[in-house]
């Protein structure tokens, strides 16, 4: 009886010491998964998902508190990438958080701007240069197209301009092969050879 208790205590102590040591050695700092998710998000910091920025949204996804289809700027492409990373099914965008639009940048009509600095305060990425009573302008390479500056402008001088495709941002298109559902008949081609 005593031997049995002694043996079990010995096993428990050894296991406890090993686990305690590895808990200190293998401690995970921060959330590495949240950082991987953050890298996929478009970094517009627009807040359309309902979180104050891309990082908080990534943290919420990593914790399982938010769905993966709330990011309109990321679009379906972004949802697909997130689903792949997390090993879940991709789903269509949640339209209630906004619609996916082509990437655009804000443009300030400098003839109308009164230099009120309201848009500078609204910009989450500091892409607007200017000072009080001075004309403001947008640094196009920094602008993420989040549209947060449009609402505060008292004279409505900000418009969104779609980004035209030029050399620095041209990308290969994915090859697309049309899918044909099984069971549908394909009209035989004029040469008489069907596609099987």
């Amino acid at each position, binding site marked *: 009886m005593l031997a049995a208790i002694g043996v*079990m205590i010995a*096993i428990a102590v050894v296991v406890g010491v090993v*686990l305690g040591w*590895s808990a200190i050695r293998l*401690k995970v700092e921060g959330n590495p998964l949240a950082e991987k998710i953050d890298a996929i998000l478009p970094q517009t910091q627009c807040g359309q998902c309902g979180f104050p920025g891309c990082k908080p949204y990534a943290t919420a996804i*990593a914790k399982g508190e938010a769905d993966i289809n709330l990011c309109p700027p990321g679009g379906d492409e972004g949802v697909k990438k997130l689903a792949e990373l997390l*090993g879940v099914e991709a789903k269509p965008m949640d339209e209630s958080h906004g619609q996916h639009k082509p990437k655009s940048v804000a443009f300030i009509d400098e003839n109308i701007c009164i230099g009120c600095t309201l848009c500078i305060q609204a910009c989450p990425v500091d892409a607007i240069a200017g000072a009080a009573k001075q004309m403001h302008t947008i640094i196009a390479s920094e602008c993420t197209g989040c549209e947060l500056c449009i609402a505060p402008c008292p004279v409505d001088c900000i418009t969104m301009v779609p980004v035209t495709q030029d050399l620095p941002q041209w990308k290969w298109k994915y090859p697309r092969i049309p899918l044909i559902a099984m069971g549908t008949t394909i009209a035989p081609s004029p040469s008489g050879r069907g596609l099987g």
Partner: protein
Amino acid sequence: MPCAPILLEAYLLILISTVFVNNIVMAKILGLCPFMGVSRKLEAAIGMGLATTFVLTLASGASYLVSEYLLGTELFYLRTLSFIVVIAGIVQFTEMFIHKTSPVLYQVLGIYLPLITTNCAVLGIPLLNVQEQHGFVESLFFGAGGAIGFTMVLILFAGIRERLETCDVPTPFKGVSIAMVTAGLMSLAFMGFSGLVK
């Protein structure tokens, strides 16, 4: 060391026997919970297989040491109890290790990772080791072989299930039913290995 080739042959036979002939899932019908639960996606199946391999090999070695040097013949009634404690400790360690090295795998495995503790294959193999009076190295090979067999079957099964997703399965057989039928057929196929090794 004149007997080294003979020993090597014996270890090889143990490996072949546990992987193919006495496959832990197909022949002994152990470890069915992860077999059914984590075989939906190939990647998760591979991860689960690797984690189980790691745990099972360590657990076989550790429980041999426990049963041989701590329990002996007098305290044999503590075998199951102490094995469970040792396995739980090893699984906990594996969980921390995977959390540190591969957060995505950690997320994918989810609840199944701590559930390796209750995977009866992991407890079954150390108990079989004692029953068949294996030595330390034999125990390790038996554990590793069983785990490799488990991983192989899990990966094969996950591959089949991924293909079944796109198949036109009759409605009453959809989901788990067709998976059960598939598992049964796989088990039948594995019976073809019987007689290869004792």
